[in-house]
């Protein structure tokens, strides 16, 4: 399972429901396993675990795994540098500030590039902001103008909204990078993990 896949998730800690979750009966138990529960002392602790699991979910699905609604089945390591689902282990990065948490989970040895931005745009344009952020990331990697890049989603029968995960094209050709988008409240986020270079051609 060395194929590069990345997922990212941002949580706006100022969203009203974010502050209430810790006090809701059953929420922590639904999200965290026994070990993780001992690490939850604040809303930030809870949402860090949640964002890590959501980020991992997005990457795992692309690797062919099916975590489904089982948040507890995705275990976040105490040092928050990895997540595990069954036999699959992903690297994890968690960043944030007073008002947000951003988690990125990925497979393989390459390190993804991730960015986060605040937005005041009212829904539903937050998706467009996240896509613009992703194009900016990949434009730096590819060395082109962000306007040359387009985020597309292929139709997939059975997917929750009828479409598969996002990917990026330049002039109609696929950019070889796995990508992930996220938004919550005032924040949009994106991550890109360029495909590992293949073996050198035989001569």
């Amino acid at each position, binding site marked *: 399972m060395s194929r590069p896949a990345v997922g990212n998730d941002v949580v706006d800690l100022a969203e009203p429901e974010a502050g209430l979750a810790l006090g809701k*009966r059953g929420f922590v138990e*639904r999200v965290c396993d026994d070990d993780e529960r001992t690490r939850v002392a604040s809303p930030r602790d809870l949402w860090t675990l949640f964002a890590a699991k959501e980020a991992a979910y997005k990457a795992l699905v692309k690797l062919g795994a099916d975590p489904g*609604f089982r948040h507890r089945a995705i275990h976040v390591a105490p040092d928050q540098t990895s997540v595990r689902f069954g036999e699959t282990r992903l690297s994890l990065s968690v960043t944030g500030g007073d008002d947000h948490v951003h988690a990125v989970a990925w497979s393989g040895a390459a390190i993804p590039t991730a960015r986060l931005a605040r937005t005041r745009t009212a829904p539903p344009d937050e998706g467009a902001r996240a896509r613009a952020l992703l194009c900016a990331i990949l434009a730096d990697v590819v060395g082109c103008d962000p306007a040359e890049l387009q985020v597309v989603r292929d139709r997939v029968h059975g997917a929750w909204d009828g479409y598969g995960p996002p990917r990026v094209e330049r002039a109609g050709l696929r950019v070889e990078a796995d990508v992930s988008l996220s938004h919550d409240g005032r924040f949009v986020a994106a991550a890109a993990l360029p495909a590992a270079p293949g073996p050198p051609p035989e001569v």
Partner: protein
Amino acid sequence: MDQKEVFAEIVSILKRFARNQEALAQATPQTTFLKDLRVNSARLIDIVIEIQEKFSIEVSDEEADKVHSIGDAVALVVSKLSPQ
């Protein structure tokens, strides 16, 4: 409690969590949580918890995973409320 009553109770629960209130106002059993109502995954957990409390039932992760629409939720609740 019949299907119609369960449907109304679930729509009532969803009022706090649906970002697309217009879609909720026109909800049918086919209305989906994620795509139509634009409920995010954290709020989906809230909804499952509220359904459990409202109807005094237990919903496992596996059962919740199969609930994509209001109709799915109604069917699950009705099946759990029906005498075995």
